[in-house]
């Protein structure tokens, strides 16, 4: 039962990364692909109906983590105290950037929130990537199984690690690049004219960088987390996760010109594959430790199995309902957002 919840949670986090990921990407590219005020309006309109719903996947993942793995929730959230507070503040700025911009008709007001939206999107992807990197690398758990990580120490992957070191920064940059591409592909798919052309250009330029970064991250992960190679030999089926990511990586480039929708879905598969690979790399631990023997396993972190079983009874129908709402909203969206148009 704990393993079932581990993979459900990985799926939920993956869904969050895929969905909110593209509006983060759009945010990062806000000044790159949209040059005028009306073009920036177009970008915001293209995520307007869905970004809030996408962010709810984060809140739902947080709640699910709390209910299913209370010990993990408590240990990880207090250990990541400082970066989480910063993430909360960045999320606040991002939401305000999207929602307050259109309330007051003044160029300075618009510019302020454009910058807030763009900068917070970029920093958030970096932090989320670094958080994922921390999980894969392992945490400085003490003998009580708790930890408190400073933001950085000496940027080396030693015994006294910080949130940011060369490895987690590498993962952070890879995540930011991947989501920038993901956002660009959303814009290729959902907009037309100059915005669409510039977004396609971004994809063409960033794609080789993403390939290199993915390769580097994969090699570094194998070096930093030995569990990864052990798991591959023990559960060869798990190789599906990185293979999905690889297929997505190839697909987003291959379909770029022929089918923007497929290219976007391929980059979604890439993001999902990355999250799944990270989950596979630490399985069966919930929190790997820097010092062997102190890790927190999925079984130890989980609530008791009767609770987990009861939770499944309301969670599955609830999430089906939630996906139905999401589908309903996505299906109602206009096919393309034209600059200067009004598809509200």
């Amino acid at each position, binding site marked *: 039962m704990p393993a079932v919840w581990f993979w459900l949670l990985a799926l939920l986090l993956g869904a969050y990364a895929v969905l909110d990921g593209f509006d983060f990407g759009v945010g990062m590219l806000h000044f790159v692909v949209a040059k005028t005020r009306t073009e920036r309006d177009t970008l915001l309109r293209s995520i*307007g*109906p869905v970004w*809030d*719903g996408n962010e*709810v996947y*984060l*809140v*739902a993942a*947080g*709640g*699910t*983590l*709390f*209910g*299913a793995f*209370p*010990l993990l*929730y*408590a*240990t*990880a*959230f*207090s*250990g*990541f*105290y*400082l970066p*989480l*507070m910063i993430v*909360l*503040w960045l*999320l*606040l700025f991002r*939401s*305000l950037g999207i*929602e*307050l911009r*259109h*309330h*007051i008709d003044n160029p300075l007001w618009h510019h302020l929130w454009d910058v807030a939206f763009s900068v917070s999107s970029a920093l958030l992807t970096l932090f989320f990537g670094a958080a994922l990197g921390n999980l894969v690398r392992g945490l400085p758990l003490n003998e009580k199984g*708790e*930890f*408190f990580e400073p933001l950085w120490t000496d940027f080396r992957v030693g015994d006294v690690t910080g949130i940011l070191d060369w490895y987690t920064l590498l993962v952070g940059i890879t995540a930011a690049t991947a989501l920038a591409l993901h956002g660009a592909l959303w814009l290729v798919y959902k907009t037309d004219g100059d915005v669409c052309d510039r977004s396609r250009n971004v994809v063409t330029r960033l794609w080789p960088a993403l390939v290199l970064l993915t390769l580097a991250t994969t090699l570094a992960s194998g070096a930093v987390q030995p569990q990864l190679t052990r798991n591959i030999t023990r559960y060869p089926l798990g190789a599906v996760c990185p293979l999905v990511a690889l297929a997505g990586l190839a697909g987003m480039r291959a379909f770029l010109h022929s089918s923007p929708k497929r290219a976007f879905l391929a980059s979604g598969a890439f993001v999902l594959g990355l999250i799944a690979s990270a989950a596979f790399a630490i399985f069966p631990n919930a929190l790997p430790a820097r010092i062997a023997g102190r890790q927190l396993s999925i079984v130890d972190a989980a*609530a*008791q199995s*009767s*609770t987990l079983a*009861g*939770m499944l009874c*309301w*969670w599955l129908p*609830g*999430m089906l*309902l*939630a996906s139905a*709402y*999401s589908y*309903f*909203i996505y299906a109602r969206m206009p096919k393309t957002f034209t600059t200067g148009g009004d598809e*509200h």
Partner: protein
Amino acid sequence: MTALGLHRFQFAFTLTYHYLFPQLTMGLALVLVVLKLLARRRRDEDYDIAARFWTKLLGVAFVMGVVTGIPMEFQFGTNWARFSRIAGGVIGQTLAMEGVFAFFLESSVLYLVLFQEQKLGPRRHLLATIALCTGTWLSGFFITCTNAFMQHPQGFVIDPSGVIHLESFSALLLNPWAWIEYSHTMIGATITGSFTVAATAAFYILQDRDLVVAKKMLGAAVVIGTIAACCAAFPTGDQQAKLVLAHQPETFAAMEGHFHTEIGAGMTLIGQPNVEALRIDNPIRIPYMLSFLTHQRWNTEIKGLTEFPRERWPDNIPLLYYAYHVMAGLGSLFIGLMALSSFLLYRGTLGHSRGVLWLIMLAFPLPFVANTAGWMTAELGRQPWLVRDILRTSAGSSDQVGPGSTLFSIIGFMGLYAMLSVLFFMIVTQQLRRGLSAKEHA
């Protein structure tokens, strides 16, 4: 301040600020549904105009609620790790349910309500508004349910290591404390929503602006406000007080400022609690009233705080006493103001009674104060426990997070929330200046 004190202060501060917005959105969402129903029933476009005005403000309040609400969920883990470790298997359930059942619904329909009125047509837009209202009220239920478990835990077992396991989902969701506290809380939110609408209507009527729409809006808000103000005292407030008396007797004594056991106990209206001397200084009392209100008989015994061991006393008795008295005092004031307004509305003269309109307009901040004071009563009254009789507050905070880190986040939140307040007021004042019937422009 100690490390524990800082954790408590941070949660109290961020929660108090956060709840200014949800009480408004839950209350406004209900008023909005009523306005839209009136528009359809009476085939009156004016109610639609009023509804559109409030939809825009609801959108802003909703965003504020979301951005200040996400930190609340996180802080269970960041600041209260030991509590989450021990009780997470239970309270994590209701918090997860809120995300899955309420937030997805709200975030999906909010966009439809805000931007798609034209496309949906009146009937489906009404349905979307009802769905939004349902979402916000569901959200309120799951949160109150979480709090109810902490106030009056049931449906659990404790294992030898001290961890609380959930034994019965139905006992968690059907906790009587949850349902009474929820009713009282939602009535409180309805007061905030209706008073805000009434105050805004009075603001326009007093300036002779948008008179037709403003008067209709005022009428609807006063009727809702009257019903809510009465229900806040009876039955919901009364029932809540009886629950506290039955299950948290020392809290009841502390919030009433009732130090010594008495037969035929009087009720203190005003006075300053003097905890060292165990008495109320400068009291104004109604004799026998406390006995009568709690047991409906004049000569019953009410236990005083001194009957209970000190280590079970709430740790901030004066603040608890004031919070409760502010809430109850304002609640009485609301009943008076709404009774008067309803009477004038019935006679058809409310729209010209400038004195009463002034009062309605100036009363707008008071429901926010009353709701805040009410929650302070609940939360200070729960002390010294995090989970009543099971886990003390001092044993629940994150021991890995030092005071330096906590102070860092407190200062950050204070700065950001000060900025949020300024932004919110900028947008609200601009909306007020545009008037009720301003053409859509965003």
